[in-house]
């Protein structure tokens, strides 16, 4: 058998390798033709096609990409590429997968991505598959509007009308204890001294700030003007003061008015009068005021400024 090849023409190395190269290129070309997604990847790799990029602030970046991120990329992303489809970049979305492009700009119903996410949950081809969190009606609307507007990566958010309101996730502030400590430092000694003197009355309003809340309402009449006066060193930091039911009188009005950060003040069931209310006219930050006895005339300027006023209505 070996001998049967002996008479054949010998192929030179260069001819052999160029043949193989040709065959490989032909194979790649065929694959590019059969799998447009692959074709685009190749063209983008060799620089013959620009890689589509989504612009920051575009409708795609702000509204569409987060939906893919939340619902799709666990199967169509960096870790797994089911049906050779990735949805973790604008280029990949537009490139499509094993079965070709998944987005047909301007025509949502011709875009397989859109038809798959709108199939009834009972359909085997519905996406995301059963067991995964489905897209909401609003999510589907966002994707439909985006495709209908040309599936652009640059069109700004405002250019597409009629999209459901964007849900902005709540930001949970990170706790920087060192920074908080620095903010608290100037008053820290005074705060802890007065906390010792008035147990349960003075607290920081949170672990992330140096602002203070005072609540003497449980002390009753035993907490009076002179006690409040003792808190003078803290006054700039007090954001909320509950003095309802205490022995505080109009004599404390100047001190209360000088608490420049005060947002909430409660004076229900105290002997304070219009005099205190009048003094508070200069409290720029005040948002909530609960008073004992005050005339509508005295309260009017505060109400006008948007302070929410509560009056002691019950006879006790």
């Amino acid at each position, binding site marked *: 058998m070996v001998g049967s090849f002996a008479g054949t023409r010998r192929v030179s190395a260069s001819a052999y390798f160029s043949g193989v190269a040709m065959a490989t290129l032909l194979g790649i070309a065929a694959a590019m033709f059969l799998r447009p997604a692959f074709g685009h990847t190749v063209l983008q790799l060799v620089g013959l096609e620009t890689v589509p990029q989504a612009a920051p602030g575009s409708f795609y970046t702000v509204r569409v990409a987060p939906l893919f991120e939340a619902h799709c990329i666990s199967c169509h992303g960096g870790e797994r590429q089911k049906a050779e489809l990735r949805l973790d970049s604008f280029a990949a979305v537009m490139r499509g997968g094993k079965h070709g492009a998944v987005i047909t700009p301007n025509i949502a119903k011709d875009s397989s991505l859109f038809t798959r996410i709108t199939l009834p949950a009972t359909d085997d081809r519905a996406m995301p598959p059963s067991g995964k969190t489905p897209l909401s009606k609003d999510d589907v609307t966002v994707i439909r509007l985006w495709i209908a507007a040309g599936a652009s990566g640059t069109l700004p958010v405002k250019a597409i009308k009629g999209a459901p309101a964007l849900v902005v996730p709540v930001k949970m502030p990170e706790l920087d204890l060192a920074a908080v400590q620095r903010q608290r430092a100037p008053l820290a000694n005074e705060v802890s001294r007065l906390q010792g003197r008035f147990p349960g009355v003075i607290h920081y309003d949170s672990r992330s700030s140096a602002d203070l809340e005072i609540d003497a*309402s*449980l002390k009753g009449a035993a907490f009076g003007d002179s006690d409040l006066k003792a808190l003078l060193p803290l006054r700039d930091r007090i954001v909320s003061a509950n003095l309802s039911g205490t022995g505080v009188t109009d004599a404390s009005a100047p001190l209360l008015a000088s608490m420049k950060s005060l947002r909430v003040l409660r004076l*229900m069931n105290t002997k304070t009068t219009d005099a205190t209310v009048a003094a508070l006219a200069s409290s720029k930050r005040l948002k909530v005021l609960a008073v004992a006895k005050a005339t509508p005339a005295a309260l009017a300027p505060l109400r006008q400024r948007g302070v929410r006023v509560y009056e002691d209505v019950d006879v006790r």
Partner: protein
Amino acid sequence: MMGKVESQSDLLQRLHCQAQNRRQFVGWGAGGLGAFFMNTAYAAQQPATSSGLTFKRDPSTPLSVLPPQFPAKVKRVIYLHMGGAPSQLELFDHKPTLSRFNGHDCPQSFLKGKRFAFIRGVPKMLGPMFPFHQTGKNGTWISDRLPHTERLIDDLCLIKSMKTDQFNHAPAQLLVQTGDARTGHASLGSWVTYGLGSENQNLPGFIVLASSGPGPTANAGKPLWGSGFLPSVYQGVECRSAGEPVLYLNNPHDVSRTQRRHVLDAVDEINRQTHAEFGNPETVARIAQYELAFRMQVEATEAMDIRREPAAVLARYGAEPGKNSYANNCVVARRLAERGVRFIQLYHWGWDSHGSPTDEGINIGFVNRCRETDQPTAALLADLKSRGLLEDTLVIWGGEFGRTPMEDNHGGSNEISKYIGRDHHTAAFTIWMTGGGVKSGMVYGETDDMGYEVVKDPVEVRDLHATILYLLGFDYQKLNYPYQGLDQKLTGVKPARVVSEILT
């Protein structure tokens, strides 16, 4: 095996031996095994979690106030749990299409692959039993069953898209109240008092007030307000609105307060010695509990005594001193809120409207539950609002699940039953919230035309919990407690979401 008859001296001998062994064991324990055990117990008191937030306190003041993680919108919570689950389709979720299909067979698509607590076979669709109308500034739909609450509709935030995965009362109640359908988890109120403490050191930080219609009461029992894996000092204390507020709190007949003080001093001394010897912080916590109970004898009695309210106030609530009623509990709830109690949990049982016995009829029992709760709820809200307390109080109203848009046909044929009912429904129910940080006059979420499934903005129970904790100033992922190798959280291990759309 012991003989049939144990003589007196044998018995004494045996008890003595047991006591000796116990003492020896404890004695060795102080050095060896016991020290190991104590260290674990001590570690449990001073948890180190990955969040970096500590909840360490002096064991003698376990309820002392700790500031929240970030500035809070609300300082306290009043949770009005309607036990047994009221029908959203007769109160808030207006479904005219369902009326049109009243009496039709339920479509197969509603039944395929679904399980219900009682419905078997093909039930009939059941249209809303009471007329709806639009009310308030935003034209919010509401039925005619809640005329008093309706007046405050512009203050409420309705969530019509609540979902749960438990279709039986006890697990569903546990899920809503503890974040898990099984017992052993810490309740919402326990988490909140653990995280924040309580302003009033003379009252428990977490108080439970229960009332009921004639039907069954707390299906899941006391674990609903249990502390689970948290230290027991954070469990809810059940108080009664009639008779003694806390059972066995008052001194026995002929025992004076001074005598009680002497007894406590002696007990405290023994406990202090025990603590000096073994160093178990639970012993100090016990001293603290005895002292709290002693202070409560005065404070709780005063706080719970609604006779101190003006008659006009009681009339607004429909409260009658001496009765055990939801109305009385609502008055007490406001008094407790004013006195710095952190978490006030009300239960009103008897909403389970299956339609079999009279009191489970939507046309009878349900109507009565509405009547028992509507006016007091509205009076409580109005009171909190007028006193400015709604600025920093969160009020939540809701059951543990919803009711089906189909008629419940258990207990006989529909044709002959004069009581109408609905089965338990997990796929959609309505709750409302109001108070600091929550948008008022809002309707969030939507169900389909039959009221069967949520079609817009679903809210899982864990999302509700995350939102409540957020309003109290906590990232739900950071309020945790190490137990069984896991940083336990109210929301469990599945990702939750703060429902930012309903926040101001």
